[in-house]
C-alpha cells in the first residue's frame, strides 16, 4: 500500500508541476496576477507530493519491504539503519527521487522567500523550475520507477554494494545534489531573464546567493567524495581525474565563475550576457554529469548500473534544457545592454580574468573527459586520458588564477592602479616567493610541491593582507577591532574562501611529497617508513554487523616511543560476496599515516603503508572554502535581496 501511495504522489507531483509551468509562463506572459499568484502554492504542492513520495520510499527501505524490487536489489535486513536510509539514494531510481526532492525544495524556497521579487520574474523562475522537475518526474515514472513491485517476494534483499556502506558516502550524494540542483535555480533565473530580455542588479542580487549556496554544497560534496575515495578505496589517492569525478568538477568550476561574475552584475551592471551564459552552463554541466553517469556511454568505477534506453531519455531532457537554454540565449541575449564601464585593470577586470581562467580549466577538463568517448566514436580508437594530461594542462591555467586571486580583492571597482595594489600586497608576494625559493633550495628537483607551497603562502597572506587592509590594522590598529566587527560578512566570506583554497593547496603540495611502501610482515616483524617503525602485532578474525573481517593490528613507534596502534581490516560481506579494504588512518595535524592490509601468505600479511604529509588539509581546506561561502551567504545584504530603489527601476515587470 505505502509504495503505491509513493508512486501516486510522484504522478501527482508531475501533474502539479505541469500546472505550475502553465500558470507561471502564461500568467507572466499575459500579466495575469491571479494566474501568477497560483505558482507559489503549486510549488508548495509539488514539494509536499515529492516529499511524501520520498518518505514512502525511505519507509519501504526501513521496514525492508521485499515486495519492492528496488529494495530487493539494493538493501538487506541485516544492514544498519543508517545504510538502509542512505541506500535509498545509493541506486539510480532512488537517487533520482532525491534529485527531484531537492529541486522541489529549491522551488519551495523561491516560492516562500521570493515575495520581494518582481512577480513576473518570480512566476517565470518558478515555471522554469517546474519544467525541470516535470522532465525529471516524467523520466522517473517512465523509465525508473522506484516503487516497482516484485512477486513473489524473496525472503530478503541482495544487499547494498559494501563499499557504499560508509558514513561519508551516505551524505555524499545529498550534498552533491544540493549543489547540482542549486544551479537549476540560477538556470531558471537566467532563462527567465532571457524571456524578459533584461538583467539588472536586482537579478544579480538574487542569483548570487543561489550560486553561492550551490557552489558551497558542491564543494562539500566533492570533498566528501574525494575523502571517501581516499580512505575507503585504499589506493591512497584523493583525486583520480575519473570521468565521473570530472563530471562533478565541471559544474563546480562553472559555478565558481558564475558566483564571481554575478558580483559584477550586482555591483556594476556589467558582464550581463556572460553571467547569463555561465548560469546556463553551470546547470548544463550538472545535467551533462547526470547523463554521463547514468547512460552507460562511459566506463567508470563510480558509474551507476545503466541502460541506453534511459540514456536516450536523459539526452532528450538535455536537448530540451541545454539546447532550449542556448537557443533562447542566441535569440535574446543580444538585447542585454551593459551599463557599467570599466578599465582592464580594475576589480571587474580581475573578475573577468578569473572567469576566463576558470572557464579555460573547465574547458580542458571537459575536453579531456569527452575526448576518449568521441575518439572511440569517430576514430574507433581507444584512448584513455589520465592524470598526466589533466595535471599538465590545468597547471599553466591554475598558476595565473592563483596569482590573480590574490590581487582581485584589493583592486577598486572601475579603474585601479598598480602601485596601491602592490603597496598592500608586497609582503604577501614576498612570502610566497620566499617559500617557493626555500622549497626549491631544500628539495630542488620537486618543482610541483615547491610551486604549491609558494602558491599557498601567497594566497593565505594575500587574504590576510586584504582583511588587514580593510580593517586598517596597520594604519589605525586601535580601531581595527571595531572595523573588523563592522566589516560586511561577504568580505569576510570571500577572504575565508580564498584562504580555504590556500589551505587546500598546502595539502595538495604535501601529498606531492607522499611516500609509500609495500611489506610482507609476519606477526612480530616490523618495517620503517619516513622515520616511523610499523610493527605487526597480530592478525585475527573480527565479526561485524553484516561482515566478517581479517584485522591486522599494527603498532607505530617513533624512535621507540609508541605513537599509536592501528587496525586495518579486510572485510568480507557475505550477502554480496564482496571484499573491501578498510584503511587504518592515523591523522595528525601534519600528516596522515595510512595503512592498508593486503593478502595473507606464509603466515604473514602484505601491508601497504603510506606516509601522506599534510593530507588532511586538502579536505580541511575544502571545508573552509564552503564555510567562506556560508559566511558570505549570512551577509545581511544577501538576505535583503534587493533594495527598494533597484526594484523601482524594474517597475514595469511588476505592473
Amino acid at each position, binding site marked *: 500500500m505505502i509504495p503505491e501511495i509513493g508512486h501516486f504522489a510522484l504522478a501527482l507531483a508531475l501533474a502539479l508541476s505541469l500546472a505550475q509551468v502553465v500558470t507561471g509562463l502564461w500568467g507572466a506572459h499575459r500579466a495575469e496576477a491571479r494566474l501568477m499568484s497560483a505558482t507559489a502554492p503549486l510549488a508548495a504542492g509539488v514539494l509536499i507530493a515529492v516529499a511524501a513520495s520520498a518518505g514512502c520510499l525511505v519507509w519501504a527501505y526501513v521496514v525492508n519491504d521485499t515486495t519492492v524490487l528496488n529494495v530487493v536489489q539494493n538493501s538487506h535486513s541485516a544492514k544498519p539503519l543508517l545504510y538502509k536510509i542512505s541506500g535509498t539514494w545509493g541506486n539510480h531510481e532512488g537517487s533520482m527521487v532525491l534529485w527531484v526532492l531537492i529541486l522541489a525544495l529549491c522551488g519551495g524556497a523561491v516560492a516562500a522567500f521570493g515575495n520581494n521579487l518582481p512577480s513576473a520574474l518570480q512566476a517565470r523562475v518558478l515555471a522554469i523550475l517546474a519544467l525541470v522537475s516535470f522532465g525529471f518526474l516524467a523520466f522517473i515514472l517512465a523509465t525508473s520507477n522506484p516503487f516497482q513491485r516484485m512477486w513473489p517476494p524473496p525472503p530478503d534483499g541482495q544487499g547494498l554494494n559494501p563499499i557504499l556502506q560508509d558514513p561519508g558516502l551516505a551524505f555524499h550524494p545529498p550534498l552533491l545534489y544540493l549543489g547540482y540542483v542549486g544551479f537549476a535555480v540560477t538556470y531558471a533565473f537566467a532563462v527567465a531573464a532571457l524571456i524578459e530580455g533584461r538583467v539588472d542588479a536586482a537579478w544579480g542580487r538574487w542569483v548570487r546567493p543561489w550560486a553561492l549556496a550551490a557552489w558551497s554544497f558542491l564543494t562539500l560534496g566533492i570533498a566528501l567524495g574525494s575523502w571517501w575515495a581516499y580512505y575507503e578505496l585504499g589506493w591512497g589517492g584523493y583525486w583520480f581525474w575519473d570521468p565521473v569525478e570530472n563530471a562533478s568538477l565541471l559544474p563546480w568550476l562553472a559555478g565558481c565563475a558564475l558566483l564571481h561574475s554575478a558580483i559584477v552584475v550586482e555591483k556594476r551592471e556589467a*558582464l550581463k*550576457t*556572460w553571467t547569463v551564459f555561465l548560469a546556463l552552463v553551470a546547470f548544463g554541466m550538472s545535467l551533462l554529469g547526470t547523463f554521463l553517469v547514468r547512460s552507460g556511454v562511459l566506463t567508470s568505477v563510480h558509474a551507476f548500473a545503466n541502460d541506453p534506453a534511459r540514456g536516450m531519455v536523459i539526452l532528450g531532457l538535455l536537448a530540451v534544457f541545454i539546447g532550449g537554454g542556448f537557443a533562447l540565449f542566441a535569440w535574446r541575449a543580444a538585447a542585454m545592454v551593459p551599463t557599467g564601464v570599466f578599465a582592464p585593470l580594475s576589480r571587474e577586470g580581475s573578475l573577468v580574468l578569473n572567469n576566463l581562467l576558470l572557464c579555460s580549466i573547465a574547458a580542458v577538463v571537459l575536453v579531456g573527459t569527452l575526448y576518449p568517448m*568521441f575518439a572511440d566514436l569517430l576514430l*574507433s580508437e581507444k584512448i584513455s586520458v589520465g592524470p598526466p594530461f589533466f595535471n599538465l594542462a590545468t597547471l599553466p591555467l591554475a598558476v595565473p588564477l592563483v596569482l590573480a586571486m590574490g590581487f582581485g580583492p584589493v583592486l577598486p571597482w572601475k579603474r585601479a592602479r598598480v602601485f596601491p595594489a602592490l603597496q598592500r600586497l608586497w609582503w604577501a608576494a614576498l612570502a610566497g616567493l620566499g617559500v617557493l625559493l626555500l622549497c626549491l633550495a631544500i628539495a630542488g628537483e620537486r618543482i610541483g610541491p615547491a610551486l604549491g607551497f609558494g602558491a599557498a603562502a601567497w594566497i593565505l597572506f594575500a587574504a590576510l593582507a586584504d582583511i588587514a587592509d580593510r580593517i586598517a590594522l596597520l594604519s589605525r590598529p586601535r580601531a581595527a577591532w571595531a572595523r573588523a566587527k563592522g566589516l560586511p560578512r561577504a568580505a569576510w566570506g570571500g577572504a575565508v574562501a580564498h584562504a580555504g583554497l590556500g589551505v587546500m593547496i598546502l595539502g595538495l603540495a604535501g601529498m606531492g611529497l607522499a611516500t609509500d611502501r609495500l611489506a610482507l610482515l609476519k606477526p612480530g616483524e616490523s618495517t620503517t617508513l619516513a622515520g616511523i617503525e610499523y610493527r605487526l602485532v597480530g592478525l585475527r578474525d573480527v565479526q561485524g554487523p553484516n561482515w566478517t573481517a581479517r584485522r591486522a593490528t599494527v603498532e607505530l613507534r617513533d624512535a621507540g616511543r609508541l605513537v599509536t596502534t592501528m587496525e586495518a581490516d579486510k572485510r568480507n560481506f557475505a550477502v554480496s560476496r564482496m571484499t573491501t579494504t578498510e584503511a587504518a588512518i592515523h591523522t595528525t595535524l601534519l600528516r596522515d599515516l595510512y595503512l592498508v592490509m593486503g593478502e595473507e601468505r606464509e603466515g604473514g600479511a602484505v601491508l601497504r603503508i603510506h606516509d601522506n604529509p599534510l593530507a588532511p588539509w586538502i579536505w580541511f581546506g575544502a571545508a573552509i572554502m564552503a564555510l567562506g561561502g556560508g559566511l558570505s551567504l549570512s551577509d545581511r545584504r544577501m538576505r535583503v535581496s534587493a533594495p527598494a530603489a533597484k526594484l523601482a527601476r524594474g517597475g514595469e515587470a511588476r505592473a
Partner: protein
Amino acid sequence: MSATTPGARPAAPRRRLLLLAPLGVAAAAGAGFFAMLRGLGTGSYDPKGVPSALLGKPAPDFALPPLEGADRPALAAADLRAAGRPVLVNFFASWCVPCVIEHPQLMKLSREGVPVLGVAYKDKPADALGFLQKHGNPYQRLGVDLPGRIAIDWGLYGVPETYLIDRGGIIRWRWAGPVTEETVAQQLRPLLKTHA
C-alpha cells in the same frame, strides 16, 4: 567580452554568431551522444570493449622471461599458436584482489584441458611465485612482465585481464576484470566451441 563595449549597439553579425556558438557546440555534442547511445544498442560503440584494432588481429609480438622456480616454460608470441587449439592468455598479479577471485575459474579451465598461459604483470617474481604456491598454478606457460612493457602493446586496462587467442594466433575475445562463473558459461564456453 561584451562588457567592455560601452553603450547600446545593434547586435553586430559577429556578435550574433558568437551568441549562437554555444548552441552549435551543444548540438554537435548532443549528436555525438546520440550516436553513442545508438551504438550501445547495436554493439558498435562499447566503452568497456576491446580495442577494435586488436580484435580479429594477430596478437602483438613479444617474448617474456620465465618465472624462476615456477617450473613452467617461458612465454613468447609463437607459443600462442603452438598449442594447435585456442588458448587463454591471462594477465595477473599477486597484488591484485580480483585476481584471487577469478583464480578458481582458471584452475577449473586448466583442469579441463584448456591451455591457460599466464603473464605476471608488474609483479616481483618472488611475490608471483608465492601467489601461485598459495592458490595453485593453472598456467601451462608463464612469462614475467615486470616493467609492464608488453601490456602497452596489448592495450591492457589493468589486471586481471584475459584474452582468447584462436589456433591461428588471432585475438578473438578480451575480458577486462575477473573471470567469473557466468563469464565462463555465457561467453567463454561458446567461443571455445566455435574456435575449437
